[in-house]
């Protein structure tokens, strides 16, 4: 009997965790219901900050969903066995986060019940409309990819399927970046650096999510991660973090150089209150410097440090998106260059935004959906990485 009790305890713990995830999802759905009933008046969003906290959550999840597939691409496309063993888990995480992010995005619509209109009336010049195809295609491609990996008879197709996913997620993250690149008049956006920046950022965030889930699975199953694999994956994550920081730095340095953009950069980096704070403390310090220290300093780098580093990278990611999306809208549009402006509609004024509880609950609900899909997926199907001994 005594042998059974830890197993029983684990079983109960599993159901408790799933129930907790389900509760968060329910609270998120309730928040969406309230938003639909009362209107967006119960959120912090307004006519100046039109996209708020739900979009930060949704875009984080969608970017990470694309980035986590890097693990499978390195396995399938570049033939690294250590990563190949992890490809199914990466695929599951991708589907889970994509589902969570899209649910948030959909439920934040002013008229979520009309979502079908997005399929029946399609505007080909809209990048949002393109993304509807890219996101649904991504689901399909990853499901096919998972099938080819898990079904023995389909194994030969797993490489082409992996290649399709590899290409598709590049286009998908480009599409997500282009949502902002195509905004001609907003000083924070309207630049072609955003899609490649989003792609590189996705590698770092996806890897961070993967590390946390992988470590949790190994701890749960009392398994130890092969040290060589751990080192490889940890260093790769560090490299992605540095590359992402490079893109973010280039974006801001280019802006600083343009006289017409310096006011905006001063706002985001120096004078804008919560935005510079989140940028420097949230993104640069917590999201980059501390994780890099934990990854590369000789006295750290063990599993515990890597998990903490991954969590910090995710926190940094949320900070960066908050600054980019909400800070980018808070800075007033330059409608009359050369003039000081004022009006009853916020012309020339910094937009005010305070995220409200319902919209945060909606965002967390999306994270809950991702958690549930992952937790149930791992339980019912074979997603746990099986180590191939002596990885080259």
């Amino acid at each position, binding site marked *: 009997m005594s042998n059974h009790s830890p197993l029983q305890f684990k079983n109960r713990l599993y159901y408790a965790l799933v129930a907790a995830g389900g509760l968060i999802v329910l609270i998120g759905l309730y928040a969406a219901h309230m938003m639909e009933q009362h209107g967006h008046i119960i959120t912090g969003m307004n*006519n100046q900050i039109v996209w708020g906290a739900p979009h930060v959550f949704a875009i984080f999840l969608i970017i990470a969903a694309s980035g986590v597939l890097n693990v499978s691409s390195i396995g399938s496309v570049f033939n690294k066995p250590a990563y190949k063993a992890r490809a199914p888990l990466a695929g599951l995480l991708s589907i889970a986060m994509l589902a969570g992010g899209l649910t948030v995005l959909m439920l934040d619509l*002013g008229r979520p019940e009309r979502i079908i209109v*997005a399929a029946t009336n399609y505007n080909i010049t809209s990048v949002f409309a393109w993304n509807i195809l890219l996101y649904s295609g991504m689901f399909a491609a990853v499901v096919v990819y998972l099938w080819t990996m898990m079904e023995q008879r389909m194994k030969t197709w797993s490489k082409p399927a992996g290649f399709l996913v590899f290409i598709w997620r590049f286009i998908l993250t480009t599409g997500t970046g282009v949502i902002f690149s195509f905004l001609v008049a907003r000083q924070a956006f309207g630049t072609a650096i955003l899609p490649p920046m989003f792609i590189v950022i996705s590698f770092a965030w996806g890897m961070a999510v993967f590390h946390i889930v992988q470590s949790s699975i190994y701890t749960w199953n009392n398994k130890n991660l092969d040290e060589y694999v751990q080192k490889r994956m940890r260093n790769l994550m560090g490299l992605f973090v540095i590359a992402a920081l490079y893109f973010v730095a280039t974006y801001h340095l280019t802006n600083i150089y343009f006289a017409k953009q310096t006011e905006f950069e001063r706002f985001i980096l120096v004078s804008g209150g919560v935005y510079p704070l989140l940028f420097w403390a949230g993104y640069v310090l917590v999201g980059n410097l501390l994780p890099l220290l934990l990854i590369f300093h000789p006295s750290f780098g063990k599993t515990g440090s890597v998990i903490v580093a991954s969590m910090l990278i995710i926190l940094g990611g949320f900070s960066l998106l908050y600054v980019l999306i909400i800070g980018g809208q808070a800075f007033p549009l330059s409608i009359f260059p050369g003039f000081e402006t004022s009006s*009853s509609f916020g012309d020339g004024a910094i937009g005010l935004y305070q995220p409200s509880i319902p919209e945060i609950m909606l965002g967390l609900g999306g994270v809950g959906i991702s958690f549930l899909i992952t937790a149930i997926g791992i339980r019912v199907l074979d997603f746990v990485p099986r180590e191939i001994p002596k990885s080259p």
Partner: protein
Amino acid sequence: MSDINVQRRQFLKTSVGAAAVAIAPGILLFDMAHGKTEAVTSKVRWGMLIDTANCADGCNDCVNACNKENGLSGGLSQTDSQWIRKVDLKDMRTGRELSLPMMCQHCENPPCVDVCPTGASFGRADGIVLVDKHLCIGCRYCMMACPYKARSFVHEPLHDQKADVPRGKGTVESCTMCVHRVDKGQQPACAEACPNKSILFGNLNDPDSEISKKIRTIASVQIRADLGLNTGIRYQGL
């Protein structure tokens, strides 16, 4: 003639009469609902010329007229709709001050129409940019894309709407150039209400219209002309 035949004729007559009485109002309503049958044409491009020199600082008559015409609350909170607003400007180098009305600029190449996923944002052939309230899913991408901050999102349930001006909670809206008035041959409410006649409304495509003659002879500008959107609203004295 037998009694049965007479009765049958009587019955048929009554039935036809009853059917006519039942259908007639429907046909009339159908005609009323469809309004004018001829299509909007691109031979017309509706536009406005706003004379900022005549626009009085502190005067809000155009804004009030718009609110009244379109059934807007007139509230000024960050979540209230404002289809037209007065903007006070001060030249940062010379200190020159002016005031002007700002609304949807009814671009020929509107960014809101480009980005709208469902085609709810659309430009009519006569240059008026509108939102189809039945297609709008409330994603607010058009508000992100508009360079003029012209659009508002309906944040709360609405009451007492105007029959001619459909609006809806959870959808985006903006100046319609009073399309319901223009289609009846009237002027937009703001143009009619301006005490100084600072808003000149007319057909930019008709070389003999007052607005076309005026923009040929005086200097007028489009706001953010650098974006190449070719706005239907022009400003004089900016």
